[in-house]
């Protein structure tokens, strides 16, 4: 019942650059699927012989087990000239797909988990920021997020106060817009695309669209992999495994406003695959 709302969503299932004719066996929400390139080179995703709806966008192949009512969300920056597009590569995490997204939306852990990169003590304060559920676009947005960062990006030299905007356009995807050190006035785009394998297991496909003419592609990949692998061990130890949508043992603070809005939006839309519905 509650799973239905998420069944019609788009999910990342592989890198376009690594498609091949042999196909790759993976899973989507408990269903085995196979991702392959067709004889004409186009992406083909099947589940038990059934051909699934497919999109090829943002470096990844996207598929849905149901009948998507909406087109895959737009990232206009993906078509902007001068950006470099970075396929960071898959990382598997033994956690709820919703927890992976929620962690990505959190700023308060930066000084403690990403020490000397995205944060440092004593600069631990999360200043006030704005959060809203935009009803027209059906997305969660957090804006005017500011944080002091020792090395905000591969292209940053020295500490800066970075400004962030977070956007959740789909239940297992988040897009982060972030101060772009070499190009003031533009935003770097860093995404977290999450493929739900099961309610407590996911493949995470980070992807970026950056202005950075200096760093090598490998350096850009390694910077983002470093950040995400610092999160991974923490995600695998969160309790309960599923994301609680009802208040229970947890007491959110002001810094958690984005998480509160994300959970509220998930509950309202019936996006509950990977969620714990009744507080325990």
């Amino acid at each position, binding site marked *: 019942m509650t799973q239905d709302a998420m069944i019609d969503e788009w999910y990342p299932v592989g890198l376009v650059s690594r498609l091949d004719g042999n196909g790759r066996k993976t899973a989507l929400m408990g269903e085995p699927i196979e991702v392959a390139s067709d004889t004409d080179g186009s992406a083909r995703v099947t589940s038990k012989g059934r051909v699934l709806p497919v999109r090829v966008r943002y470096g990844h192949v996207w598929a849905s087990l149901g009948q998507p009512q909406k087109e895959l969300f737009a990232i206009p920056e993906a078509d902007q000239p001068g950006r470099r597009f970075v396929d960071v590569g*898959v990382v598997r995490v033994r956690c709820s797909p919703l927890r992976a997204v929620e962690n990505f939306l959190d700023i308060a852990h930066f000084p403690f988990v990403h020490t000397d990169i995205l944060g440092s003590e004593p600069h631990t304060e999360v200043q006030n920021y704005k959060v809203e559920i935009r009803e027209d676009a059906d997305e969660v947005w957090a804006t005017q997020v500011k944080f002091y960062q020792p090395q905000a990006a591969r292209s940053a030299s020295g500490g800066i106060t970075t400004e962030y905007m977070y956007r959740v356009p789909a239940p297992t995807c988040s897009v982060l817009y972030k101060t772009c050190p070499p190009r003031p006035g533009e935003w770097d785009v860093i995404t977290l695309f999450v493929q739900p394998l099961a309610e407590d297991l996911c493949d995470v496909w980070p992807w970026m669209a950056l202005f950075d003419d200096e760093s090598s592609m490998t350096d850009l990949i390694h910077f983002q*992999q470093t950040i995400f692998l610092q999160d*991974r061990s923490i995600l695998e130890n969160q309790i309960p495994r599923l994301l609680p949508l009802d208040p229970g043992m947890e007491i959110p603070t002001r810094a958690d406003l984005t998480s509160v809005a994300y959970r509220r939006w998930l509950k309202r839309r019936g996006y509950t695959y990977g969620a714990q519905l009744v507080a325990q």
Partner: protein
Amino acid sequence: MKLYDYILSPSCYKVRLMAALAGVKLDIRPVDFHPGLEHRGPELMALNPAGSIPILEDGDLVLTESSAILVYLAAKAAPDWLGGDAAEEAARVQQWLSFSGRLTASLGGARLHEMLLRPGDIGALQAQGIAALRELEAGLFEQSLRGQRFLVADRPTVADIACFPYVALAPDGGVSLDPYPTIRRWSRALRALDAFIEMPGIHRLHELKPEPHIESGEA
């Protein structure tokens, strides 16, 4: 000295850690191991036909086995880390350097499978990893009975650096360290060394908080 390096590789981290502890400056050449599989490309295969990293280049010398690289760095810059010349101590260093290969094959294989989706028999890899951890726990406990905190002596050697990364990252491959108190103490002693550096998944030691102030008469 040039190190062909991958930030998430525990074997490459051994080299970075040993270099930091020995005060050696490395020229890092990042390798796109994942997702690019650059270590299997023509440039690196020409340098190391085994198709593995780390690779250390120093002039004409090319080393592709991490234990050999650790010994080279220590011999060049920090000979104390090689262990003593006495027969027993020298043999123990070699024993654990060889043993570290089992950790790479088992715990390292489980980690690659669980994290980066590399193929493998996960049940067998985890079982072999647990067998190796039990052996390490016993070895470290016997050392503690001799009054020694590290694998070979009461000071760290290349043997400790060779074994530490895959052990510390065992949980990445679904193998818990909870059952091994002596391993956890040893890991803490290594992380407390001056000039220790971390890698993703191995967190630095938190600063010890001041002693809680206990009011007289409260207890």
